[in-house]
């Protein structure tokens, strides 16, 4: 589909990005904005180049805490979603708890995690996990809860057990919901790990930016932001590709593809 787009449409994202950078650079010069307030893109690029090694290392750290937290969220979220979708009683019992838990801003949990596990790797992973499992649970449970009752009747009349219905209908049905939720979850996990790093860690991009701020290295702060943006985009894109791969049947309408 992409190939058939007119050349202008395909170039548009690049053109707009370049235009933004040019305008940014020009305004800094024209309005004489001091570098410690808003560094021009060239200064950010230079900081990126000068500090590429710490940026690279800390990016890897942030990436690993995010991905581990995310992996935990996927495993746990899938399991809890299936359990909740399985039983009305469990659903009724757990749902209010989950809502309450989800309502807590996760920044507020970080100090407790630090109290339990010390600063650094573990609280970052756990914050990423805590902040990102909720959408996965809700989506999986929704997929299971929306099985057509008629279809359930057809299968039950054949002697299908609840497990059969789950395996043949429930789980395949909830997969598009599940993969759709991964895009949201990975973004949230990223937010979680960066928050935790900024508050309580000696590593990670969040921490790097905090230190740069303390030393007034404003271009480096912005270079950290750029590193985060790149990581975020790559992870989101990976999940979007995964979703398209796994659930092609659910995206049959031109509307969804457009």
């Amino acid at each position, binding site marked *: 589909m992409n190939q058939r787009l007119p050349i202008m449409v395909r170039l548009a994202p690049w053109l707009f990005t370049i235009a933004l950078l040019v305008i940014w650079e020009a305004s800094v010069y024209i309005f004489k904005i001091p570098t410690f307030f808003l560094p021009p893109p060239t200064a950010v690029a230079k900081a990126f180049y000068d500090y590429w090694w710490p940026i690279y290392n800390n990016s890897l750290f942030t990436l690993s805490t995010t991905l581990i937290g995310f992996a935990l969220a996927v495993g746990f979220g899938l399991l809890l979603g299936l359990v909740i979708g399985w039983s009305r009683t469990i659903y009724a019992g757990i749902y209010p708890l989950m809502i309450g838990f989800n309502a807590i801003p996760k920044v507020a949990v970080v100090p407790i995690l630090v109290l339990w596990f010390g600063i650094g790797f573990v609280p970052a992973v756990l914050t990423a996990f805590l902040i990102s499992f909720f959408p996965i649970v809700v989506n999986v449970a929704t997929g299971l809860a929306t099985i*057509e009752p*008629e*279809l359930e*009747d*057809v*299968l*039950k*009349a*054949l*002697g*299908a057990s609840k497990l*059969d219905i789950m395996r*043949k*209908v429930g789980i*395949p*049905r909830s997969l598009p919901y599940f993969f759709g939720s991964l895009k949201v979850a990975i973004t949230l996990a990223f937010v979680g790990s960066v928050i935790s790093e900024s508050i309580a860690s000696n590593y990670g991009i969040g921490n790097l930016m905090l230190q740069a701020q303390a030393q007034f290295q404003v271009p480096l702060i912005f270079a950290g932001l750029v590193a985060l943006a790149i990581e975020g985009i790559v992870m989101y894109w990976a999940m979007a590709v995964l979703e398209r791969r796994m659930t092609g*049947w*659910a995206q*049959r309408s031109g509307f969804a593809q457009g």
Partner: protein
Amino acid sequence: MTAFVDLAAVSHMYGGGSGTLAVDDLTLSIGRGEFAAVVGPSGCGKSTLMKLATGLQFPFKGTVAVAGKKVSQPVKIAGMAFQAPTLLPWRTTLENLLLPLEIVQPHRSELRRKRKQYVERAENLLASVGLGGQSEKYPWQLSGGMQMRASLCRALIHEPQLLMLDEPFGALDAFTREELWCVIRDLHATRQITVVLVTHDLREAVFLADRIFVMSARPGKIIAERKVELVRPRELEITFQNEFQGIVQELRDHIVKARQ
């Protein structure tokens, strides 16, 4: 004729005794190989009757027996089709047809060994309803009428002795509907299965059925029973005959009375 489906003085309510009655003192019996139709005002308990007869619901009073056995669990000798085709969008038509075989015994344990044979059976069934060559298509690549045909095939793939149809053609246009009447008519004639058809369409009931049961408004019970003795095989032309239209008129009067 011995009863194949037998409901004796059956009462049922949803929600475990707190609700109001859905059917009350319902008695009917359908012979083996018979084509029975059930008509009645909306909400009178026709779908409930289907669920009772297939063991998806159990009555709090009266007894339900199918093939001479009291129903105490889902009867596995039945196939069902509803107004919505409910095909699984991630499976091809063929895979949708094989779904019941993945569940019902003894096919379930033999599926791997006899797969080729089952696929052949599915292809033949599809061909017999005019869906030959469509088996690799996904449901959303089929028209509404074709989906309904596939859904019928799914209900028949495990060669049930009892076919339960709950307003199967409600969502289709008049021409497609009449085409499918003929499909059902031929399936019934060649397989000699017992069919129970719930419908709102009185012409459909008269065209297809050997016997028609009219239900009262909720809580439903049988208020009239009409044998249809039009000779088989019936062609669509008979729907214009006086005898046919007389029966339709008679049924209409019953329903009008039932709604009051």
